[in-house]
């Protein structure tokens, strides 16, 4: 940058002479623009945009880690292989999508129910809100270890509860069974995120003008009617937002799987994110190009589905009003 100790003053003083020539438009304070936006944009381009471009570039190459990361151009070969014959990828994609679709379907009604209950002024509402929000504040490894214990066959809480209510026959080694492992992990994210969704929905409910609810009450609307015909339609934008955030978050799921099951048993909990990392660092291929191609495909799918979902949910909203 230039030597001027105070670029702002320069920016103010300089235009005076030129303004009379060029008309009323003041000159841009470039010094200040660079000062305020420069550091952030440098960071952003160096650590986000540039790596994204490199990943796209890598996805057309073979990039062997054992050969000093030397490049060999292979064109669309990785993409053909992934989409055409990589069964692990399709299994992982199905698991990730299941997670992304099931989680909002479970979380939202639960969060809405809890928000309605707290909204109807039960005692200690603030205490409950505080407790329900807490799981989100712990890291995935911490949550993962706690839930490894909860799902322990012999002494875990899950089976303890089942045995206590007489359903001991349904006790299960939840994470060792390929059928139950994924649902078990989805329940953990429900545990983490429902309180968070509830808090947001409750905040939104409090912004609904009291007159609406009173008017409905005068008209003789019962609590069910109020919930489904007044509150939920008014909360729709918030709900749509939360569903999309939840969907995207689950499409990226990595950490919980990595700590709890590593994708097993029999790839029953493999997600696209864990597969990318395994393929890059654990497979003997030692190639960074192939997993980059998976990342590119998944990136496109996440963007496509998120936009599609946004439009779909918002159009419905437009139809209703």
């Amino acid at each position, binding site marked *: 940058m230039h030597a001027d100790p105070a670029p702002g003053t320069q920016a*103010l003083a300089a235009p005076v002479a030129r303004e009379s020539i060029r008309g009323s438009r003041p000159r841009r304070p470039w010094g200040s623009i660079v000062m305020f936006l420069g550091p952030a944009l440098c960071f952003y381009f160096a650590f986000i945009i540039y790596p994204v471009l490199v990943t796209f570039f890598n996805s057309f190459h073979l990039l062997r880690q054992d050969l000093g*990361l030397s490049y060999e151009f292979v064109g669309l070969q990785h993409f053909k292989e992934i989409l055409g014959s990589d069964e692990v990828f399709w299994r992982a994609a199905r698991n990730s999508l299941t997670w992304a679709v099931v989680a909002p379907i479970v979380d939202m009604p639960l969060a809405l129910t809890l928000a309605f*209950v707290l909204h109807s002024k039960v005692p200690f509402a603030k205490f409950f809100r505080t407790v329900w929000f807490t799981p989100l504040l712990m890291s995935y490894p911490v949550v993962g270890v706690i839930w490894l214990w909860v799902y322990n066959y012999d002494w875990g809480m899950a089976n303890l509860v089942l045995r206590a209510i007489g359903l001991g026959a349904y006790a299960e080694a939840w994470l060792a069974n390929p059928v139950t492992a994924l649902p078990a992990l989805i329940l953990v994210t429900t*545990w983490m995120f429902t*309180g968070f969704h509830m808090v947001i929905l409750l905040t*939104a409910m409090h912004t609904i003008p009291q007159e609406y609810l009173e008017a409905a009450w005068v008209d003789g609307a019962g609590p069910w009617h109020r919930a489904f015909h007044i509150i939920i339609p008014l909360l729709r934008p918030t709900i749509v937002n939360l569903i999309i955030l939840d969907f995207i978050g689950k499409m990226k799921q990595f950490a919980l799987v990595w700590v709890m099951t590593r994708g097993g048993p029999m790839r029953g909990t493999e997600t696209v994110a864990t597969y990318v990392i395994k393929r890059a660092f654990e497979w003997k291929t030692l190639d*960074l190009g192939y997993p980059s191609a998976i*990342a590119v495909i998944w990136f496109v799918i996440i963007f496509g589905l998120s936009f599609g979902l946004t439009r779909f949910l918002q159009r419905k909203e437009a139809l209703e009003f």
Partner: protein
Amino acid sequence: MLQRRLTKAILMLPVLVYTAFSAGPFLWTAVMSLRTTDEIYKSHYGLPIPAHWGKFYTAWTEFGYSTYFRNSAIVAGTAVIIITVVGAMAGYGFARKRFAFPLREPLFLMLFLSVMFPPQIMILSLFQILIKYGLFNTLPGVILVYAATELPITIYLLRAFFAQIPQEMEEAARIDGCTDWSMFWRVMFPMALPAVATTFILNFIYFWNEFLYAVIFITKQEIRTLPLAIQFLVSDQYQDIGMLATGLMIASLPVLLMYLFLSEWFVKGMTAGAVKG
């Protein structure tokens, strides 16, 4: 009256069931953190009598938690300071018409869209880049990546706040001879403190708990952060449940204690990004 009470009682039922579900696993872990592994294997749901507070000291000194804690504090602390300063300046730069330039709005849109980027689209090439510049397996490398990945959402939130502050404040200060730089730090930044504090807390929790980048970019034991350390301890010392539970509490307590005292700020911060719309 009786009917009202009955309704309340019925409403309380799901609340209590959900509270048991929500708090149960953590309370159980908290209790185990004060019991020895032998006691736990005798009875998994016993009470911590007597409470072994010394386990926290043992974990801290003998199981390396002091090192991991220090690493986490360095990483989260430095990254959050960088991102707060850089993000606030950029949020202000994007908020004011005065700083407009031809590509600014498309740039901001791109920044906003990158909130959605899955980390996998960057992580492998970041690995390659960090190696190239000697930042792989170093705390500065992790700090830079952390600060960069949370930058878009931080700028987005702070821009919205700066845009709400009326321009008259700045014009008055400018007439008094303030430069853009000193005006920002003396007038605008202090006015934005509520929003800045919100993003500060949000980012601090995120960095404290981050796992994916850490697992790829750190392979040396002495620079492991807490989440990473726990992942290793759970496979190395799987049997030692008591000590692990203590470690989980050490890893979670800083954020949980902050939450206890600043719960309103937390809720505000963590919901700020989502209520829009």
